[in-house]
């Protein structure tokens, strides 16, 4: 399929982009890396009057470390994040999660802001944002606001961003040195999108080093049973519901694992191993 007709704009600044969104009054759509929106356009499931392309706004692509946190411009490519020394050092969970995003030629285009704003429940970055209790910055006609992860995701593909707002920045608290972490993912095949939403859940969880906090992580793992609800991935916040076989298994091998004195052994599997199995699992915990 080919995209429907539309007008196209590639503004050079965020202000220009905001003006365009205002001009179309909700009929425009922000185009970031395009790795989710372009397939939707090709299938004509999305029919915006005009994509507003952020790819020519250089000020939206950056990774900056400041006191206790890392700020990432919304248009920072996943491939940049994958190789960023700052991310490797301060946000190893984000680095690990990035390797799971799509495939190499997807990550060269895909962006952190696009992934989070799209809020696909099968995507990695929304899980990381909630697990790390990060926040995003959104700019609109009325100015800028900061939205905590918990207040951002509503349900499948739905955030509290308004149509005239642009997600400009992602802020993640730096992980403590030596913090343990794990990422877990259920999928029939690595890197696919959309086909198996109902059967997929991704989660990222973390916990502090203190042994007493381990249960918090376990609860986070259990919470991911509420598949599809991005809030379920919020570390330590979810409630135990249902008994999905995958999460049960993951609970045993991950948080619930009695081996202490450091890290629980995370059931981490490489993308390759995960792909090779009919029922995959991979994992990410933080200890």
């Amino acid at each position, binding site marked *: *399929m*080919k*995209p*429907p*007709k*539309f*007008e*196209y704009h*590639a503004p050079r600044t965020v202000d220009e982009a905001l003006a365009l969104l205002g001009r179309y009054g909700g009929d425009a759509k922000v185009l970031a890396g*395009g*790795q989710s929106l*372009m*397939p939707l*356009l*090709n*299938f004509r499931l999305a029919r915006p009057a005009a994509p507003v*392309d952020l*790819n020519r706004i250089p000020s939206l692509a950056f990774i900056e470390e400041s006191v206790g946190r890392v700020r990432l411009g919304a248009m920072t490519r996943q*491939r940049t994040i994958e*190789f960023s020394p700052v991310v490797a050092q301060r946000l190893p969970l984000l680095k690990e999660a990035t390797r799971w995003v799509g*495939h*190499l*030629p*997807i990550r*060269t*285009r895909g962006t952190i802001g696009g992934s989070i704003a799209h809020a696909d429940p099968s995507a990695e970055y929304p899980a990381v944002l909630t697990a790390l209790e990060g926040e995003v910055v959104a700019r609109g006609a009325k100015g800028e606001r900061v939205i905590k992860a918990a207040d951002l995701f509503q349900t499948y593909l739905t955030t509290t961003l308004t149509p005239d707002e642009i997600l400009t920045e992602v802020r993640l608290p730096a992980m403590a040195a030596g913090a343990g972490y794990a990422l877990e993912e259920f999928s029939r095949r*690595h*890197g*696919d*999108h959309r086909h198996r939403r109902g059967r997929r859940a991704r989660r990222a969880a973390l916990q502090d080093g203190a042994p007493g906090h381990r249960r918090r992580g376990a609860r986070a793992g259990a919470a991911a049973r509420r598949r599809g609800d991005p809030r379920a991935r919020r570390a330590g916040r979810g409630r135990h519901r249902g008994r999905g076989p995958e999460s049960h298994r993951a609970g045993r091998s991950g948080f619930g694992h009695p081996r202490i004195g450091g890290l629980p052994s995370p059931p981490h599997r*490489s*993308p*390759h191993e995960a*792909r090779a199995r009919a029922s995959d699992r991979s994992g990410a915990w933080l200890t």
Partner: protein
Amino acid sequence: MADMMTVRLKVNGVAHEGRCEPRKLLVDFIREDLGLTGTHVGCEHGICGACTIIVNGESARSCIMLAVQADGAELMTVEGLMQDGKLHPLQEAFREHHGLQCGFCTPGMLMTALDFLRTNPSPSDREIREGISAVLCRCTGYQGIVNAVRAAAATLRGGR
């Protein structure tokens, strides 16, 4: 045809200019407007990888990019691999190791492998499999492709 836009770009070192609707996919622009049909169109939604090309030095799916987005870009397609009448070491290796059968996925496989080996010149077999998992092949069962990429990596490390 409303709102035709001009696209100027370089493909395999050659400057091109064309006019198209903003909705035109980059892969269609390359094939239909520039006549470079080596790049294949498969699924048209970013899954199969047949349309993978190099955009400004990095691999990307040309079926989920608009041609207008590539205005000013430098592209490399499968036609650019061969130099001075000589196959690229990746192409040689694919031929040598049965890395293709019907050939439909091959352009995407080659361009993906090119970017993969650029960032990981000495990959393990597992890493090769992870790298080429970006492209679907329905003929070979992948083993020949893995062998080809491994062999090409060795050749490229040794200098051409």
